[in-house]
Protein backbone atom coordinates (compact mmCIF):
# COMPACT_ATOMS: atom_id res chain seq x y z
CA UNK A 1 0.00 0.00 0.00
CA UNK A 2 1.39 3.38 -1.03
CA UNK A 3 1.24 6.57 0.96
CA UNK A 4 0.95 9.46 -1.48
CA UNK A 5 1.72 12.99 -0.22
CA UNK A 6 -1.08 15.05 -1.78
CA UNK A 7 -0.01 18.71 -2.10
CA UNK A 8 -3.46 19.76 -0.85
CA UNK A 9 -4.34 17.13 1.78
CA UNK A 10 -1.03 15.74 3.05
CA UNK A 11 0.01 12.07 3.05
CA UNK A 12 -2.95 9.84 2.25
CA UNK A 13 -3.56 6.18 1.68
CA UNK A 14 -3.34 4.82 -1.88
CA UNK A 15 -6.95 3.62 -1.55
CA UNK A 16 -8.13 7.24 -1.83
CA UNK A 17 -6.42 7.62 -5.21
CA UNK A 18 -7.16 6.39 -8.66
CA UNK A 19 -4.24 5.62 -11.01
CA UNK A 20 -4.61 7.40 -14.35
CA UNK A 21 -1.52 6.30 -16.25
CA UNK A 22 1.52 7.89 -17.86
CA UNK A 23 1.55 11.67 -17.39
CA UNK A 24 4.08 12.36 -20.14
CA UNK A 25 1.99 11.59 -23.23
CA UNK A 26 0.65 14.62 -25.08
CA UNK A 27 -2.36 14.64 -27.35
CA UNK A 28 -1.57 15.19 -31.04
CA UNK A 29 -3.07 18.24 -32.67
CA UNK A 30 -6.35 17.98 -34.59
CA UNK A 31 -4.36 17.44 -37.80
CA UNK A 32 -2.44 14.50 -36.34
CA UNK A 33 -2.61 11.32 -38.42
CA UNK A 34 -4.04 7.99 -37.29
CA UNK A 35 -0.60 6.67 -36.31
CA UNK A 36 0.00 9.64 -34.00
CA UNK A 37 -3.36 9.08 -32.31
CA UNK A 38 -2.66 5.33 -32.07
CA UNK A 39 0.58 6.08 -30.24
CA UNK A 40 -1.13 8.61 -28.02
CA UNK A 41 -3.81 6.13 -27.02
CA UNK A 42 -1.96 2.83 -26.83
CA UNK A 43 1.83 3.07 -26.96
CA UNK A 44 3.43 3.20 -23.53
CA UNK A 45 7.06 2.78 -22.55
CA UNK A 46 6.50 0.64 -19.41
CA UNK A 47 9.82 1.71 -17.87
CA UNK A 48 11.70 -0.17 -15.18
CA UNK A 49 12.57 2.80 -13.01
CA UNK A 50 11.25 6.30 -12.55
CA UNK A 51 7.96 7.25 -14.14
CA UNK A 52 5.79 10.36 -14.01
CA UNK A 53 2.20 9.25 -13.54
CA UNK A 54 -1.25 10.71 -13.11
CA UNK A 55 -3.00 9.91 -9.87
CA UNK A 56 -6.36 11.41 -9.04
CA UNK A 57 -7.11 12.02 -5.37
CA UNK A 58 -10.63 10.78 -6.07
CA UNK A 59 -11.79 10.30 -2.48
CA UNK A 60 -10.10 13.43 -1.19
CA UNK A 61 -9.64 16.76 -2.95
CA UNK A 62 -10.52 15.30 -6.41
CA UNK A 63 -7.40 16.89 -7.89
CA UNK A 64 -5.32 15.27 -10.63
CA UNK A 65 -1.72 15.03 -9.46
CA UNK A 66 1.57 14.21 -11.13
CA UNK A 67 3.54 11.67 -9.15
CA UNK A 68 7.17 10.64 -9.67
CA UNK A 69 7.20 6.95 -8.73
CA UNK A 70 9.80 4.21 -9.11
CA UNK A 71 8.10 1.23 -10.74
CA UNK A 72 10.35 -1.31 -8.99
CA UNK A 73 10.71 0.06 -5.45
CA UNK A 74 7.42 2.05 -5.43
CA UNK A 75 9.34 4.95 -3.90
CA UNK A 76 7.46 8.21 -4.43
CA UNK A 77 9.92 11.06 -4.76
CA UNK A 78 7.76 14.03 -5.74
CA UNK A 79 4.13 15.00 -6.19
CA UNK A 80 2.93 18.19 -7.89
CA UNK A 81 -0.41 19.54 -9.02
CA UNK A 82 -1.56 18.99 -12.60
CA UNK A 83 0.03 22.16 -13.98
CA UNK A 84 3.41 21.47 -12.35
CA UNK A 85 6.31 19.74 -14.06
CA UNK A 86 8.36 16.78 -12.88
CA UNK A 87 11.67 15.72 -14.36
CA UNK A 88 12.51 12.03 -14.55
CA UNK A 89 15.90 11.64 -12.82
CA UNK A 90 18.67 9.76 -14.67
CA UNK A 91 18.44 6.01 -13.99
Amino acid at each position, binding site marked *: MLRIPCP*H*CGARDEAEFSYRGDATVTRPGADGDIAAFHDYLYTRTNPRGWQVEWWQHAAGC*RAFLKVLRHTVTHEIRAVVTATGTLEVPPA
Partner: protein
Amino acid sequence: MSAPEPTHPLAACATPGRHGAPGDAPLRVTLPRRDMVQVMARRGREDALAEAARAAFGLALPPAGQAAAAPDATAVWIQPGHWLFAAPRGMEGALAARAAAAFAGLAAVADQSHGRTTIAVSGPAARRVLARGCRLDLHPRAFGPGRAAATQIAHVGCLIHQTDEAPVFELTVFATLAEPFFHWLMEAGAQDGVLIE
Protein backbone atom coordinates in the same frame (compact mmCIF):
# COMPACT_ATOMS: atom_id res chain seq x y z
CA MET B 1 -46.86 27.96 2.28
CA SER B 2 -43.73 25.86 2.57
CA ALA B 3 -43.00 22.37 1.34
CA PRO B 4 -43.28 19.63 3.96
CA GLU B 5 -39.99 18.76 5.64
CA PRO B 6 -38.47 15.87 3.69
CA THR B 7 -37.92 12.60 5.49
CA HIS B 8 -34.46 12.35 7.02
CA PRO B 9 -32.27 9.90 5.05
CA LEU B 10 -31.67 7.95 8.28
CA ALA B 11 -35.26 8.01 9.52
CA ALA B 12 -35.64 4.27 8.89
CA CYS B 13 -32.55 3.11 10.78
CA ALA B 14 -31.49 5.68 13.39
CA THR B 15 -33.66 4.67 16.33
CA PRO B 16 -33.08 6.96 19.32
CA GLY B 17 -31.76 5.24 22.45
CA ARG B 18 -28.95 2.94 23.58
CA HIS B 19 -27.49 0.38 21.22
CA GLY B 20 -24.61 -2.07 21.48
CA ALA B 21 -22.69 -2.84 24.67
CA PRO B 22 -23.68 -1.16 27.94
CA GLY B 23 -21.15 1.25 29.40
CA ASP B 24 -20.63 4.70 30.87
CA ALA B 25 -19.08 6.34 27.83
CA PRO B 26 -21.04 5.46 24.72
CA LEU B 27 -20.52 7.04 21.33
CA ARG B 28 -23.03 9.88 21.17
CA VAL B 29 -24.70 10.29 17.81
CA THR B 30 -26.88 13.20 16.75
CA LEU B 31 -28.35 14.06 13.38
CA PRO B 32 -28.17 17.84 12.94
CA ARG B 33 -30.36 19.08 10.11
CA ARG B 34 -28.38 21.32 7.85
CA ASP B 35 -28.69 23.21 4.63
CA MET B 36 -25.54 22.83 2.56
CA VAL B 37 -24.30 24.48 -0.58
CA GLN B 38 -21.16 23.82 -2.55
CA VAL B 39 -19.43 27.02 -3.61
CA MET B 40 -17.06 26.72 -6.58
CA ALA B 41 -14.86 29.74 -7.26
CA ARG B 42 -14.54 30.96 -10.82
CA ARG B 43 -10.97 30.86 -12.03
CA GLY B 44 -9.03 33.90 -10.86
CA ARG B 45 -11.86 35.20 -8.66
CA GLU B 46 -10.78 33.53 -5.42
CA ASP B 47 -9.69 36.79 -3.77
CA ALA B 48 -12.95 38.57 -4.62
CA LEU B 49 -14.87 35.49 -3.41
CA ALA B 50 -13.01 35.56 -0.08
CA GLU B 51 -13.94 39.22 0.28
CA ALA B 52 -17.60 38.50 -0.52
CA ALA B 53 -17.67 35.61 1.97
CA ARG B 54 -16.34 37.91 4.66
CA ALA B 55 -18.96 40.54 3.85
CA ALA B 56 -21.97 38.23 3.47
CA PHE B 57 -21.23 35.45 5.98
CA GLY B 58 -18.68 37.04 8.30
CA LEU B 59 -16.12 34.30 7.82
CA ALA B 60 -12.72 33.93 6.24
CA LEU B 61 -12.67 31.23 3.56
CA PRO B 62 -10.51 28.50 5.11
CA PRO B 63 -7.40 27.08 3.42
CA ALA B 64 -6.93 23.39 2.59
CA GLY B 65 -7.78 21.03 5.43
CA GLN B 66 -9.50 23.69 7.49
CA ALA B 67 -12.98 24.92 8.34
CA ALA B 68 -14.21 28.33 9.42
CA ALA B 69 -17.22 29.10 11.55
CA ALA B 70 -19.41 32.19 11.81
CA PRO B 71 -22.40 32.50 14.17
CA ASP B 72 -24.89 31.32 11.53
CA ALA B 73 -22.81 29.39 9.00
CA THR B 74 -19.71 27.28 8.56
CA ALA B 75 -17.47 26.88 5.54
CA VAL B 76 -15.36 23.76 5.00
CA TRP B 77 -12.61 23.51 2.39
CA ILE B 78 -13.37 20.48 0.23
CA GLN B 79 -11.10 20.84 -2.81
CA PRO B 80 -9.06 23.59 -4.48
CA GLY B 81 -11.38 26.56 -4.99
CA HIS B 82 -14.37 24.70 -3.53
CA TRP B 83 -16.03 25.10 -0.15
CA LEU B 84 -19.07 23.52 1.47
CA PHE B 85 -21.17 26.09 3.30
CA ALA B 86 -23.57 24.79 5.93
CA ALA B 87 -26.22 26.43 8.08
CA PRO B 88 -29.02 25.13 10.31
CA ARG B 89 -31.98 23.95 8.25
CA GLY B 90 -34.12 26.92 7.24
CA MET B 91 -36.46 27.75 4.44
CA GLU B 92 -36.05 25.48 1.42
CA GLY B 93 -33.28 26.88 -0.76
CA ALA B 94 -32.67 29.90 1.44
CA LEU B 95 -28.96 29.26 2.02
CA ALA B 96 -28.37 28.57 -1.68
CA ALA B 97 -30.20 31.78 -2.62
CA ARG B 98 -28.21 33.75 -0.07
CA ALA B 99 -24.92 32.31 -1.36
CA ALA B 100 -25.89 32.77 -5.01
CA ALA B 101 -26.74 36.43 -4.37
CA ALA B 102 -23.56 37.07 -2.40
CA PHE B 103 -21.25 35.28 -4.86
CA ALA B 104 -22.87 36.29 -8.18
CA GLY B 105 -20.17 36.34 -10.84
CA LEU B 106 -17.55 35.01 -8.43
CA ALA B 107 -18.58 31.41 -7.90
CA ALA B 108 -21.03 28.72 -8.95
CA VAL B 109 -23.37 27.63 -6.17
CA ALA B 110 -24.96 24.17 -5.96
CA ASP B 111 -27.51 23.31 -3.30
CA GLN B 112 -26.52 20.05 -1.57
CA SER B 113 -29.08 20.12 1.23
CA HIS B 114 -30.89 17.06 -0.07
CA GLY B 115 -27.80 15.40 -1.53
CA ARG B 116 -25.80 15.11 1.65
CA THR B 117 -26.51 14.55 5.28
CA THR B 118 -24.52 15.12 8.44
CA ILE B 119 -23.99 12.70 11.31
CA ALA B 120 -22.36 14.17 14.41
CA VAL B 121 -20.44 11.79 16.68
CA SER B 122 -18.96 12.81 19.98
CA GLY B 123 -17.67 11.59 23.30
CA PRO B 124 -14.50 9.90 24.49
CA ALA B 125 -15.22 6.88 22.27
CA ALA B 126 -15.46 8.93 19.07
CA ARG B 127 -11.80 8.70 17.99
CA ARG B 128 -11.61 5.01 18.84
CA VAL B 129 -14.76 4.19 16.88
CA LEU B 130 -13.76 6.24 13.83
CA ALA B 131 -10.30 4.63 13.86
CA ARG B 132 -11.98 1.30 13.05
CA GLY B 133 -12.73 2.53 9.54
CA CYS B 134 -11.02 5.86 8.97
CA ARG B 135 -7.51 5.91 7.51
CA LEU B 136 -6.74 9.40 8.82
CA ASP B 137 -4.91 10.07 12.05
CA LEU B 138 -7.47 11.85 14.24
CA HIS B 139 -5.18 12.01 17.29
CA PRO B 140 -5.12 15.55 18.80
CA ARG B 141 -1.50 16.02 17.73
CA ALA B 142 -2.49 15.43 14.07
CA PHE B 143 -6.07 16.71 13.90
CA GLY B 144 -8.06 19.14 15.99
CA PRO B 145 -10.93 21.60 16.26
CA GLY B 146 -11.34 23.51 13.02
CA ARG B 147 -9.71 20.80 10.93
CA ALA B 148 -11.55 19.08 8.10
CA ALA B 149 -10.69 16.34 5.63
CA ALA B 150 -12.40 14.46 2.84
CA THR B 151 -11.69 10.74 2.91
CA GLN B 152 -13.38 7.39 2.58
CA ILE B 153 -14.86 5.38 5.42
CA ALA B 154 -16.39 1.97 4.73
CA HIS B 155 -16.13 2.72 0.99
CA VAL B 156 -18.29 5.83 1.42
CA GLY B 157 -16.90 9.28 0.66
CA CYS B 158 -16.99 11.17 3.93
CA LEU B 159 -16.17 14.74 4.89
CA ILE B 160 -14.86 14.82 8.48
CA HIS B 161 -15.00 18.12 10.31
CA GLN B 162 -13.91 18.35 13.94
CA THR B 163 -15.94 21.15 15.50
CA ASP B 164 -14.99 20.80 19.13
CA GLU B 165 -12.25 19.58 21.45
CA ALA B 166 -14.73 17.23 23.24
CA PRO B 167 -14.25 15.80 20.55
CA VAL B 168 -17.18 16.34 18.20
CA PHE B 169 -16.77 15.11 14.65
CA GLU B 170 -19.31 15.96 11.97
CA LEU B 171 -19.41 13.35 9.23
CA THR B 172 -21.03 14.54 6.01
CA VAL B 173 -21.88 11.79 3.52
CA PHE B 174 -24.04 11.45 0.43
CA ALA B 175 -27.65 11.05 1.54
CA THR B 176 -28.14 7.96 -0.61
CA LEU B 177 -25.17 6.26 1.11
CA ALA B 178 -26.06 7.47 4.59
CA GLU B 179 -27.79 4.20 5.54
CA PRO B 180 -24.93 1.81 4.73
CA PHE B 181 -22.54 4.31 6.32
CA PHE B 182 -24.72 4.43 9.42
CA HIS B 183 -24.77 0.63 9.62
CA TRP B 184 -20.97 0.66 9.57
CA LEU B 185 -20.98 3.29 12.34
CA MET B 186 -23.30 1.15 14.49
CA GLU B 187 -21.11 -1.92 13.95
CA ALA B 188 -17.94 0.02 14.72
CA GLY B 189 -19.49 1.51 17.85
CA ALA B 190 -21.17 -1.66 19.15
CA GLN B 191 -18.38 -2.65 21.52
CA ASP B 192 -18.33 0.84 23.09
CA GLY B 193 -22.08 1.30 23.01
CA VAL B 194 -23.91 3.92 20.99
CA LEU B 195 -26.37 6.52 22.22
CA ILE B 196 -28.53 7.95 19.44
CA GLU B 197 -30.14 11.20 20.51
